[in-house]
């Protein structure tokens, strides 16, 4: 769980990002303009900033220069190359162009947190404990044998907890883009995970969608 500052002047989008990040277990603070963002950063320890470039009063670039040190992902509607280059040369860690996919945002946030070691790498739920560093899973302190693919799938579910993932999306995220196989494979692996970890009530089948790990 990380503390994330969302700097975005569009209230609906700010709220949307907040809700999505909260559903996977992050603590979120909203700021609607540059001044507010700088105030928030001064007041508390923040692990990651999602920063819109087009902000009223103080624009995103200026805010960024004052928050040096905190990992930052720029969010913007501008898609021109010069903007991207400017953002990255200033030292931004990543860049997302609106409109973006929520799963992509979550994946980038997750990746950046992992890079900067801000994420606590253990996940606990109903006696199941997942240690991402050693890639081991325990049920009531007992080690459960998992195949690498099963662990990958579990990791994807944990990272996107509370989000319904389609079978195709799961294939893409856990198996990789180049995997050629049936979505049945996903069903089989999900069944195995449910049985091994006693997560039948947690890994839910979402009608006509896929699966969701509910926390």
């Amino acid at each position: 769980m990380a503390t994330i500052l969302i700097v975005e002047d569009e209230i609906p989008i700010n709220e949307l990002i907040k809700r999505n990040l909260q559903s996977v277990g992050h603590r979120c603070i909203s700021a609607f303009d540059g001044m507010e963002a700088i105030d928030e950063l001064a007041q508390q320890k923040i692990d990651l900033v999602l920063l819109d470039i087009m902000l009223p009063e103080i624009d995103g670039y200026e805010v960024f220069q004052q928050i040096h040190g905190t990992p930052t992902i720029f969010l913007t509607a501008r898609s021109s190359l010069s903007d991207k280059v400017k953002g990255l040369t200033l030292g931004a860690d990543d860049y997302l162009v609106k409109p973006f996919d929520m799963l992509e945002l979550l994946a980038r946030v997750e990746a950046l947190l992992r890079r900067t070691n801000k994420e606590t790498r253990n996940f606990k739920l109903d006696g199941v404990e997942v240690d991402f560093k050693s890639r081991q899973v325990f049920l009531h302190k007992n080690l459960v044998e998992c195949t690498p693919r099963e662990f990958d799938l579990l990791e994807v579910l944990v990272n996107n907890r509370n989000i319904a993932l389609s079978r195709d999306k799961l294939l893409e995220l856990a198996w990789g883009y180049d995997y050629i196989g049936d979505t049945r494979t996903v069903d089989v692996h999900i069944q195995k995970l449910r049985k091994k970890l006693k997560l039948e009530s947690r890994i839910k089948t979402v009608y006509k969608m896929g699966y969701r790990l509910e926390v």
Partner: protein
Amino acid sequence: MKIKTFLFTFILFLLFFYSGILLISSMTLINNLESSKDRSLREHYFIATSYAKDLNALENRDVSIDSGVESLYRSYFNFYSKQKVILTISKENKRLYANLTEESYNLPEISENIKVSERLVSIEKLEDKDYVRVVGTLPAPYDSYTLAYYYNVSDVISSWYKMTVTLFLIGMLICGLLAVCLLFVLNRVFKPLQLISSTSKSIANGQYGNRIEVKGDDELAEMAQSFNHMAEEIQSQMQQLAIAAEQKQQFVDNLAHELRTPLTSIYGYAEYIQKIVRTEEDRIFATNYIMSECRRLQNISVLLLEMATLRTSESERKKIEMSELIRDVEQSLSMKAKEKQIEISYEHHFNTLFCDADLMHILLVNLIDNALKASSSGGLITLNAYIENEHKVIVVQDNGKGMSKEHLNHITEAFYRVDSSRSRSAGGAGLGLTLCKQIAVNHHAELSFSSEIGKGTTAKLTFTS
């Protein structure tokens, strides 16, 4: 064109000049030859007559005719040969005494039978020399003898030839001089044309600032002036087009951004409902956002459509009672004003306004609505309609927070926002003042703004027609 003119002029000149020379020289030649012929005829007559007289005298002294002819011929020949004249005498087509002469001439035979008292004149060529020949019989009773008179005209011809060559040489010199002068003159004449063509080329290449220097006040200067005028017009038109294109591009960019933001939230919340929402409360929360963002899109499309119809159609204008117009405006704003605790005062000093009531209503409501947004509770907004310099004027004034000059220049641009987050949360589409401006233009009225930070903003609508 220049080369063409030069060639044409030059060739024509050559043609006439040389044909003139040719004509003159050939006339001279013909004249000279004619006079030589006349002279030869006279000489021949004189010689033949005196010859006959002398022969007659010799005959009286009992000298035989043949020896008389011979001795006379010798003395005549000797005398005339000094004057470039050759004499021959023949009898019955046979040349006599050809061997008497020191130089022997290879003279052509006189083939024709010459009748008495008839003389033939012709031009003969002997040993590269030209002679005028006169052939005729001696007077009777010696008409069996034929006297031929050869007069050397080589000198005449060669002097003519010399003259002709000299004339041609001088002609060539004159032609050369003429060519140089012609080129010079043509250059001068064509220089302005060349200037115009090079300037128009550079203008065609996009350098719209280029002009021709105008000298003098002849036709060419006039042309240069009108050319410059044309270039100026083109330049200003191009500038206007560029500005219009830029504005349009700005509008499209803004529209794209304006559309993208609500679409991003709509898509995002739909995804949120599909993948995350588990409680009824969350669902309502997300659908509320979807609906409000849809309304925003709807607002934009309605305003854009209204502006489009305003642009294309003339409004239906009638005489409207000011009191009626103001009452309607008051009605639609009183709730909002009460809510924000802002007082609005209305005042009018003329009774009727020639306008489209609906459009004028939209305009005034928009202006006052903006004033409401800029004012805080306890503020005062005044609408004052009066006549200034014979023009009807409506002024909307507030004592709200005002704005900087920089903002003031842009507020009528589509989607321009002084404070984006706040006006968006208030549901504005960023098109209100753009619509106002459009309505003002439609009514041939001028809409201007003045503002001071902290003191308030004044919108002034001046009807010019």
